[in-house]
């Protein structure tokens, strides 16, 4: 589904991303892990054509993302709060995103109904604009908006950080449900090795922009990652 080829990004002389090749097949739940500055967000930004790579390319479902914009019709993302429109109410925001993806109000409403638990009564029907919600609630809204319109590729940057325990557990089960659906490719990044090993089928460890490990998740994965980050 997604092919990353010879992707490098340099700022001045510093190389922040240098990936020979990663091939993510359709339906895979793909986890990206690494310390600060490992290049996780940079990689996602390249996938979404928000940053122009110095070299190399990203092919998303046969579309070269820097050449054509066709990938936008089946790819969604939530990287950070710059994906939220602060002056909208959550409902208005969902409708807006829905309209862009060809869903009318009713369809968006019925889509949102399944997230009632996840929202925990704090998102819909409130009297607040997105800008006035807490960071955690903003993230909930952003993540759900990224799921509107049956996307084939969903990219979430650190979705589990800053969430309360209940929401973390619920979001993990949402991601796991998606990974059962073999039509959706999910890309998730995290700082928490436990989180990624729990939800991802495959884990790539980045360090200073390079792929250090590329693992199919197994019972040993957690230990392996742990020992790496301990410096053993």
């Amino acid at each position, binding site marked *: 589904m997604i092919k990353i080829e010879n992707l490098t990004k340099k700022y001045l002389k510093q190389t922040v991303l240098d990936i020979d090749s990663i091939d993510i097949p359709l339906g895979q739940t793909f986890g990206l892990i690494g310390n600060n500055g490992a290049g996780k967000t940079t990689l996602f930004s390249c996938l979404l054509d*928000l940053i*122009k790579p110095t070299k190399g390319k990203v092919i998303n479902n046969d579309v070269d993302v820097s050449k054509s914009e066709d990938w*936008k*019709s089946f790819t969604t993302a939530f990287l950070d709060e*710059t994906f939220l*429109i602060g002056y909208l109410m959550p409902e208005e925001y969902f409708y*807006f995103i829905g*309209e862009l993806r060809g869903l009318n109000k009713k369809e968006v409403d019925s889509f949102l109904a399944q997230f009632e638990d996840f929202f925990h009564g704090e998102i819909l029907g*409130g009297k607040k604009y997105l800008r006035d919600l807490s960071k955690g609630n903003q993230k909930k809204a952003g993540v759900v908006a990224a799921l509107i319109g049956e996307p084939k590729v969903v990219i979430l940057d650190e979705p589990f950080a800053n969430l309360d325990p209940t929401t973390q557990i619920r979001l993990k089960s949402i991601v796991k449900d998606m990974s059962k659906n073999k039509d959706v490719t999910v890309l998730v990044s995290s700082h928490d090795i436990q989180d990624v090993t729990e939800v991802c089928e495959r884990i790539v460890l980045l360090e200073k922009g390079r792929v250090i490990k590329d693992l199919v998740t197994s019972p040993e994965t957690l230990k392996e990652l742990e020992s790496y980050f301990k410096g053993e």
Partner: protein
Amino acid sequence: MFKRMFGLQWKEFNRGKAAGGKLIAKILKWFGIVYFAFMSFMMGLIASKYGGPSMTFPIEEGTTAPFLYLNKQLIYVFAYLIVMRYFIQSLPVLNIRALLLAPVLKTQIVRFSLLKTVFTYFNILPLFFLIPFSFLLAKSGNYDITGLIFWNINIIGIIYVTNFFNFLLNNKDKLLYGVGATLALIKALEFYSVIDFTIYSEQFFYLFYNAPYATCFTWLLVFWLYGYVKKYFLKGLYLDKGLQLKIAEAKIDDFSFLDRFGKTATFIKNDLRLLKRSKRARTAVYMGIGFLFYGLIFASQEDLYSDFAGGSFALAMSFFGYLFSTGGFLFMFGSFVPSWDSQYYPLMMTQKILYKEYLNSKWSLMIIGTVISTILASFIYSFFGTNAVYAVLAGAFYNIGVNGYLTLWAGAYTKSPIDLNSSANAFGDKKAINAKTLLVGFPQMLLPVLVYYFTSQYYDHLTGCLAVAGLGTLGIFLKPVAFNLIMKAYKTEKYSTLKAYKTN
């Protein structure tokens, strides 16, 4: 300590998010300041020789008419100063939260924030007028030098009163409404000539010339206000008080009646909400309304300059005024496309959005604003005769057919992020417009005025209007071509725009 805080400010100024990209903006801003300083200086020179509309220019020897005339007008000067400050002057925003826990006295934080405003151009520019004006008056030998000096000290005092008063205006809504109502009342009473405030203004300000010690009271007021504002902010330095963001109760705005316009409507709905809910964006609307009356400045003075260059110069200046009257909103809103969306530009760039739809929606909103402005302006200027209305309509055509595109095109290169939420800050930042916005407009304004000037010179007024309107109409037909060029600019600028908007 003061030095260190100043250093912090300097670094913020230098290393601010778009420091590099803002260089041109900075240059233009300074160009604007120099321009206004020069104009103030020239006005100071002229005013010292001028005795008001009914009087002769230059004045006869040995009268004090210029001084009296200025005193008459000062009440309006200060009224406008208060209004301008409220809308334009940005109040200092130190990174207060970070300093709260630092070993810095809270009084020092507040004192620094307040004293920094002492040197804003609103306080400095008047000196460019006052100094040459007073100097020439003193030189004429008709005035008491001590009186003049104290009169100046008093005026500067009042300027600082408005400076600190502005802090309160920005933070106390009741005061704001009170002052707004008072200013409106003064304007209304003057307009219907119920009360002539200029008489009182003259007496009041002449007092400080006549009785220099009265100046003490002004400065006592300055220090009292400073102390009051200081105390007010000191009390607010808690996370749940002044530093807390005011949260307005949200209400859904249903603009579904717009849905029939398809994808364009999707964005227009959002922009309407933006204009409604962001203080910063609302200012664009207020400015648009304000500019409706811009033409009055020139139209009301046409007679004054009718001898100059056969009167056609005066007409051209009026034409410039009309052009701005209908285009105010277009410039105020359009110059900040796509900056209005800067906070969520990455979202927009990853959605299935065609630039064409996006730009078309912004353009449509600008055009709707222009059409409404035109209707209102034609009404306002109908009092100046049909010729004025022709000029207004010609300006409107040009704005729709040419300036809309130019503004959007320039927007691709603007790249200054707008913090829509910042106005809710304790120290409030309401700088919705900057000098650049106005200056980008000049090439867009100069061409139609020149076209009008030359055609009306050789033919007549109506032909001049038709020529400009013709250019506009041509522009309307060339929309696809213009949009293609604009789209290209947006596409090539995409990455650098994203980078400039990045906030972390």
